């Protein structure tokens, strides 16, 4: 599973920056039937959280109505230099994380 994270490398203190994340994932709804007529089990990312300076600054709860390879774009007010960390969890409870360093100067 690969992930694309877009965090600017540098920001001025107090600057509002745009953060983007795209996670490669089928987001299988659990409502579709396969070729054998049985329901394809649900397999979705349920939660994507963004942490910065030890705080959760943004979280998205996702439902089957979110596209495959979910993409999220939101904003963050730059404070101090630190990692912008993402933690995402699927409906079976599996968690993954990745992040980028944001240098504030």
């Amino acid at each position, binding site marked *: 599973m690969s992930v694309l994270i877009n965090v600017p490398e540098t920001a001025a203190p107090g600057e*509002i920056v745009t953060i983007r994340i795209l996670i490669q994932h089928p987001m299988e*709804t659990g*409502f*579709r*039937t*396969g*070729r054998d007529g049985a329901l*394809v089990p649900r397999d979705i990312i349920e939660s994507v959280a963004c942490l*910065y300076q030890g*705080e*959760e*600054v*943004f*979280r*998205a*709860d*996702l*439902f*089957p*109505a*979110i*596209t*495959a390879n*979910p*993409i*999220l*774009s*939101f*904003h*963050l*007010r730059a*404070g101090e230099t630190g990692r912008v960390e993402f933690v995402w969890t699927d409906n079976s409870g599996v968690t993954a994380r990745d992040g980028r360093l944001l240098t504030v100067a």
Partner: protein
Amino acid sequence: MILTRRTTLATLIGGPLVLRFGPAAATPETMQTAIDGFTGGADITEGRVTLRIPLLVENGNSVPLTVSVDSPMTPDDFVEQIAIFNEINPLPDTARFHLTPRSGLATVETRIRLNGSQTVHAIARLSDGSFWSAATEVIVTAPACREV
């Protein structure tokens, strides 16, 4: 006297339009239940929320959505949550965004699936406990969820 009456009438008519999504509205029942679950039955006022979705969508499997709320995003006055609801997908819940004053700007973008033409609703809960909404009608020519 006449001036007073006019002023009173203008205030009544032009005042903020308070919209309660009642069961009698055209929105399906399941979405109403989901919205009630989100608001706890509180009043929802139309406004402050902008929901941008293409009016005509060819592919319901990937519909770009941008929601923004007019808010200073300060520790005293910020958007806590934005919930997106749809009318006719199997589940009315679409996405829920939790924001903080650290967000700086209450604008979120994602891509959604729409199982046919319908109205999409965005409802924001502010830090003062008030609820604000916007809705957009979308025509979908090739719905999601149909094919394997």
